């Protein structure tokens, strides 16, 4: 008989007051007892609505059943059939908009905490089972993967399972892409990411860091000089967008990418890092997505008072609900229906305030969300010494500009079909480079689909 309590078993969290001092992980995960208790809430529905909400179709009721049976490693293996990064996705997926949104238990009360259970089994696996992955028997074919973020890692993992000789080319000095430069330590510990990467290395995947495709090598060279039969482009998001309002180049204005890269990739929050970061007193973060929440919570941890400025209301915030809740617990303020119109500086060109205007919601726009329109005469100033723009990114131009015949969208995204095939034979693409800024799980799904398509392409060549 299922546990019919309407609420999820809460997950232990770091005390909000303590969080302002540390970049340690906030959500501490379920204990075995809590996991068993939460698993007992699953009704094991025959039609499995949750699975349809998962971009990679994890057999959710099956893995939860294995938890109920206390076969935690079995549950992990069940997830691993569909997902190559369970420890990552259990932490960063917007479950409330995916699997958990379809859960029958969500109709009257809270859905089953599928994400928390996924994380539990992934952590159980990482802590209890030695990773003895071995290279698969080689099939003699070489594939290059550009970028070591979620789509690239997944594509590489899937291909190496099939026996391909895979080399990942990474522009930065370490592998992981957005998982290391973007998502902060307190939400996704870097050792969790490293574990996944180490697993790939054990499977025989090679990772070449410090290599910018489009600059160090071109795709053409990889295919015609280095013998790669196919290439997967998972180069991710690119240059940050700005609002084109006065004052965006003042000192103290960061793109979220720069702010997060300094902190996460370059560890600027640590005393032993040589990369500088500003320690602001009052930070304004513009935007409402996960990246905005990450930037706001990092600024908080550097000791700043933080206000997130968002032009719609709380209901439209695109960020994962848990991140918004955690941000609020940490004392981050939100100014909804507010939009900056200029950033104001002093005689040294340093930020001193942001002029905003109030907004109101009108008819839905093309995205289906209510369109915010300015309220006349509602301008007001908020004082600030740092402003972080978290408005999304436009695709990196380096591959597009150096790969002849590679079709791209007007906005710069690479054109790829549902299997990831681009306009060039043997060249596949997926993740943010194709879709524009999206989620880890969608990028992972694209990497997996492309791996299948690459296998087919090479077999039929």
């Amino acid at each position, binding site marked *: 008989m299922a546990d019919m309590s309407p609420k999820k078993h809460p997950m232990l969290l770091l005390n909000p007051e303590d969080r302002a001092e540390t970049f340690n992980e906030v959500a501490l995960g379920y204990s075995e007892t809590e996991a068993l208790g939460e698993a007992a809430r699953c009704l094991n529905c025959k039609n499995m609505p949750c699975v349809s909400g998962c971009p990679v179709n994890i057999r959710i009721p099956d893995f939860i059943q294995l938890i109920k049976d206390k076969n935690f490693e079995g549950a992990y293996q069940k997830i691993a059939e569909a997902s190559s990064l369970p420890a990552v996705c259990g932490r960063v997926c917007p479950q409330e908009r995916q699997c958990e949104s379809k859960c029958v238990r969500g109709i009257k009360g809270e859905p089953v905490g599928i994400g928390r259970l996924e994380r539990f089994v992934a952590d159980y696996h990482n802590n209890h089972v030695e990773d003895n992955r071995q290279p698969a028997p080689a099939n003699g074919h070489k594939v290059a993967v550009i970028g070591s973020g979620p789509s690239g890692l997944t594509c590489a993992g899937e291909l190496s399972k099939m026996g391909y000789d895979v080399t990942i080319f990474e522009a930065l000095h370490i592998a992981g892409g957005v998982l290391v430069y973007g998502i902060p330590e307190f939400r996704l510990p870097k050792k969790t990411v490293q574990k996944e990467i180490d697993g790939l290395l054990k499977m025989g995947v090679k990772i070449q860091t410090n*290599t*910018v495709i489009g600059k160090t090598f071109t795709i053409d060279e990889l295919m015609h000089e280095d013998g790669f039969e196919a290439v997967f482009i998972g180069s991710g998001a690119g240059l940050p967008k700005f609002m084109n309002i006065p004052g965006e180049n003042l000192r103290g204005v960061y793109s979220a990418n720069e702010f997060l890269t300094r902190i996460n990739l370059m560890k600027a929050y640590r005393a032993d890092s040589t990369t500088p970061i500003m320690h602001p007193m009052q930070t304004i973060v513009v935007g409402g997505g996960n990246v905005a929440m990450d930037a706001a919570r990092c600024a908080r941890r550097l000791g700043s008072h933080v206000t997130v400025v968002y032009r719609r209301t709380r209901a439209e915030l695109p960020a994962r609900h848990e991140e918004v809740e955690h941000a609020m617990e940490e004392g981050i303020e939100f100014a909804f229906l507010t939009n900056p119109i200029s950033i104001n500086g002093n005689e040294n060109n340093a930020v001193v305030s942001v002029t905003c205007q109030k907004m109101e919601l009108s008819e839905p726009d093309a995205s289906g969300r209510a369109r915010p329109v300015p309220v006349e005469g509602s301008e007001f100033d908020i004082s600030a010494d740092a402003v972080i723009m978290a408005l999304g990114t436009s695709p990196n131009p380096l591959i597009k500009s150096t790969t002849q015949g590679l079709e791209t969208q007007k906005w710069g995204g690479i054109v790829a079909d549902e299997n990831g095939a681009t306009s060039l034979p043997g060249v596949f693409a997926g993740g943010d480079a194709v879709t524009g800024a999206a989620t880890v799980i969608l990028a992972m799904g694209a990497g997996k689909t492309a791996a299948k398509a690459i296998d087919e392409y090479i077999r039929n060549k």
Partner: protein
Amino acid sequence: MRWTDMFEIKRKRILNPTVTLMDVYAPAVAAKAQPGQFIILRVDELGERIPLTVAGCDKDNGTVTIIFQIVGATTLHLNELNEGDCIHDFVGPLGRPTELDGLKKVCIVGGGVGCAIAWPIAKKLHEMGCEVHAIAGFRNKDLVILEDEFKEASDKLIIMTDDGSYGRQGVVTVPLKEAIENGENYDEVIAIGPLIMMKFVVATTKPYNIKTTVSMNPIMVDGTGMCGGCRLTVGGKTCFACVDGPDFDGFEVDFDEAMKRGAMYKDFEKHAYDEHCNLFKKEVE
């Protein structure tokens, strides 16, 4: 394999008390790098990523020449490495090469360590058969670098020092203005050096409407078109030095803004430099 993880310093040459030249083994970069492009390096595992412009490369031996001035903790640390040591990370070539096609007569203006970047451009132009006039400015005699190299790569070389201890006394814009007024018809002036120098070069050439290219070296983190830290205003629009530059039309660059942005981490850098110096002193003691 064309790639390596061991970026070994093959040669180190002290050019003056604050400027050092290194040839670094990086065959993939050496095979591609062109004048005007840059690399990003990290000295060690916890190091900062810093951009340095490529001063030359030897494709046969797979080495890339970098010339750097010791200005902060990272360059101080880099300067402590010797031949045979390896640099932890070395990536490139980044940015767009300087556009030199079709140029027949060019004046190259270098200031201080900016001459290190100006030199390969002069060399390339000279090889192309272009008439090259070079003006190199330094604070004083002790800081003069690459004099022989410039002589070889130019048809005319003028060295300026602020204090007159070597060459002519004064700033680089003085001989530049003289040359223009004496009827030297330059297709283009290429200026590389401190922002303030480039700003004044542009102020000198603008009244004569001589195309002037400047090389911008703002603060960068990734250098590959991701972080947006290197943005500057060019012709009223936001540009990113790492992918749109580092060369820009000097008439369009907002130098005042760039100078203010460049000073963002001055205090931090000074502190890190002092700390590193103290650490070094302790090691010596």
